[in-house]
């Protein structure tokens, strides 16, 4: 719960930066903010949203709460470690806020060298410290989830009886554990280089800037899967529940999660098709990028098939989940354009890429985070949220999101580069659409903040299992007692024992 509060705060700080960016881009000229301010805004937006919202959101807020419940355990394997990881998160957050107070940083969230090491005047060291510390928070969360899933499953809960949400968090944790330390050390090297003026990344001192890109993306591409896999897990819980039938192809769904997590480690070079890496490296990364799209495609098909012969109610969580499937499909399909290496040459570093990853991260992760918050809100808070408001919020966000980001695909194709505070005037119309959408989206996000906060105090008391769901988490009280279950449950069947006829 501590996590939920802290993460919500950062989400709105990052969101405020995004809103300012879009307002500046409503006109082609630079009028609202200066170039320096603009560069600091998109940097802080990226840093906060990636490391302080998207990565910890579902694993830390929902995962820490739900994984022990779903495996029938009293708590996480290392409860004190869990608290430690929260403190690290806050410490990292303090560094980031200090960065803002020290005048901000203008390197972009990617910290590309040699700009970040030798040329930028911003508070790079502080920002790097913040990300470094919050990285350890992620690692501890991941470690905790893995040990919990391995060691604390209730009797009878075999691997292939685990809910897909647990599978997704397990795979995510593996990535957190193996990729995050690489980022941490890479940032240490950036700091050393900036501090001592000696470095492995600076060509004028015998280094190579492409080395930085390889190391950075070795973390940051898997990080995309850190953000979206838990979202897939949430959708895989909500859709069967509100379609009242078992998820289609459970085993393939679980295998797909593992496939995404492992192939995801091998595609980092697709961020570097125009960087000057070798032609053949580019081709291999392009092929692997197509391969990683296949398990995602399987998942979309299976979610769709899960609706077949169901008995569907359109509650707020279901609206979020279906919205997620739609947006994720668009995001994934446009990913194929970027994996097609010759198209990527034109589209990379333009708004096409911006739109693509916002469809995956905002359309994917944020939709599912909100869907999950609504779905488990009764369990977490012991109160019901107002359903009418919930549905209105889901629809508003879906509409605002598409209005914001769909025009950006077109802008990208027309060649508007990213990280521009000024742009050619003929592109203004699309930018105005996008900025208007951002305002709708911002209102959409404020809505749940309002009514969920209201329901915390005045909402109807929630029953133990308001959705008639089958997961273990619904078999205990709302909110759960201190040790989750009065008696450790025993499991005799797989998850999703729904029957649409009833």
């Amino acid at each position, binding site marked *: 719960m501590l996590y939920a509060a802290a993460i919500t705060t950062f989400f709105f700080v990052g969101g405020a930066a995004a809103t300012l960016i879009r307002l500046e881009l409503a006109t082609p000229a630079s009028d609202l903010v200066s170039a320096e301010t603009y560069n600091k805004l998109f940097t802080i937006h990226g840093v906060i949203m990636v490391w302080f919202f998207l990565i910890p959101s579902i694993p830390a807020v929902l995962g820490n709460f739900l994984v022990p419940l779903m495996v029938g355990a009293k708590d996480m394997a290392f409860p004190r470690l869990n608290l430690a990881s929260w403190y690290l998160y806050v410490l990292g957050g303090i560094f980031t806020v200090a960065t803002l107070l020290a005048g901000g940083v203008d390197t972009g969230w990617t910290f590309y060298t040699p700009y970040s090491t030798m040329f930028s005047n911003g508070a790079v060291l502080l920002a790097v410290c913040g990300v470094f510390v919050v990285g350890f928070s992620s690692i501890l969360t991941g470690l905790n989830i893995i040990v919990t899933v391995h060691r604390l499953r209730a009797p009878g809960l075999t691997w292939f009886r685990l809910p897909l949400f647990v599978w997704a968090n397990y795979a995510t944790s593996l990535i957190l554990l193996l990729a995050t330390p690489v980022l941490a050390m890479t940032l240490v090297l950036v700091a050393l280089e900036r501090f001592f003026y000696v470095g492995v990344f600076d060509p004028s001192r015998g280094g190579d800037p492409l080395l930085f890109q390889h190391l950075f993306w070795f973390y940051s591409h898997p990080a995309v899967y850190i953000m979206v896999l838990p979202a897939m897990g949430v959708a895989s819980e909500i859709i069967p529940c509100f379609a009242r*039938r078992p998820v289609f192809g459970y085993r393939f769904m679980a295998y797909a999660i593992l496939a995404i997590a492992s192939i995801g480690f091998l595609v980092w070079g697709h961020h570097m098709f125009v960087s000057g890496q070798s032609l053949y490296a580019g081709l291999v990364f392009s092929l692997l990028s197509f391969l990683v799209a296949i398990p995602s495609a399987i998942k979309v098909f299976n979610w769709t098939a899960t609706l077949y012969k169901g008995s569907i109610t359109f509650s707020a969580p279901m609206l979020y989940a279906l919205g997620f499937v739609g947006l994720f499909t668009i995001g994934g399909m446009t990913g*194929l354009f970027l994996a097609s290496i010759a198209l990527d040459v*034109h589209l990379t570093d333009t708004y096409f890429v911006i739109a693509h990853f916002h469809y995956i991260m905002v359309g994917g992760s944020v939709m599912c985070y909100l869907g999950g918050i609504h779905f488990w809100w009764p369990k977490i808070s012991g109160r019901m949220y107002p359903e009418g408001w919930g549905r209105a919020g889901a629809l508003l966000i879906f509409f605002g999101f598409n209005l914001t980001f769909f025009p950006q695909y077109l802008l990208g194709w027309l060649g508007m580069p990213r990280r521009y505070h000024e742009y050619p005037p003929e592109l203004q119309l699309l930018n105005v659409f996008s900025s208007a959408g951002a305002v709708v989206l911002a209102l959409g996000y404020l809505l749940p903040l309002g009514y969920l906060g209201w329901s915390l105090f005045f909402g109807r008391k929630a029953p133990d299992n308001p959705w008639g769901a089958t997961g273990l988490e619904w078999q205990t009280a709302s909110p759960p007692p201190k040790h989750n279950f009065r008696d450790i449950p025993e499991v005799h069947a797989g998850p999703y024992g729904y029957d649409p006829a009833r």
Partner: protein
Amino acid sequence: MNATTPLWALPAASDTASRVDALFLVVLAVTGAVTLAIFAVMAVFAIRYRRGSPAQRASPPTQSRVVELTWTFTPLAVFLCFFAWAALVYGSFYRADPAAMTIYVVGKQWMWKAQHANGRREIDELHLPAGQPVRLVLSSEDVIHSFFVPAFRIKQDAVPGRYTAISFTPTRPGVYRLHCAEYCGTDHANMGGRVYVMQPAAFAQWLEQGPSGASLAAQGFELFRRLGCSGCHDARSSVHAPELDGVYGRTVHLADGRTIVADEPYLRDSILLPKKDVVAGFEPIMPSFQGQVSEADLSALISFLKSLQPGGPSGK
């Protein structure tokens, strides 16, 4: 870009652009059709199987290996086609026509500087003849930049400390936008300009205008003497140093047994990091010129070395 360009049409002004566009349209058609199909199926299911509808729901399928494998391998086959096509197009960006005109482009916070073979220089502008294959050799004096001309559908990073190159043939005369696409600091958004694709005759005329000076290779020869390179690399020199006539494109045997083709990156490294790739049979005695030559000097020196072809025009 022309002010008259309609919003939806990005001009296709090079051979690369038409190849990329064809691929784009096919990928768009296929993914668009599949996306719409998925949405349609979702919508049909959502309406037909809404709670309380009279639809038949007996024994919903929970798994089917045949179905799963179908929608695993069908996308795989489609993806492999996309991959192969895209790879072919990508390869063409880096295969230079032997008759290609080489232009050196240097990125610097926050401007693009270009050097033509005859010595003409320009800043934030690039003039090109239509129908002539062009090869751009890019480098940077400070941070990473990226040379992006949307109308050509090409983009290539300019990385400090190394050369990158990209090839294309401009086809349609006109004025097009030039951008920096890799974030490079405060004025990143203003680092750009115009590319002018001209009729060959008009281009030849343009090339002759402007301050008349020595050709790039001749400037290189001047540097070659001034920096003392000729002291060792001259055939009559007493110092034992590799012969440079016809060095460009030659296969060089190195002291540690490797062989390497003497392309621009190799020549660049040999000037800046001479101890890296020592030629077989020579002592590693050459001093490094790192920090003594600018990017513009380097392009002149390399142009000069390239001009030393047997029978080619020599700067001497």
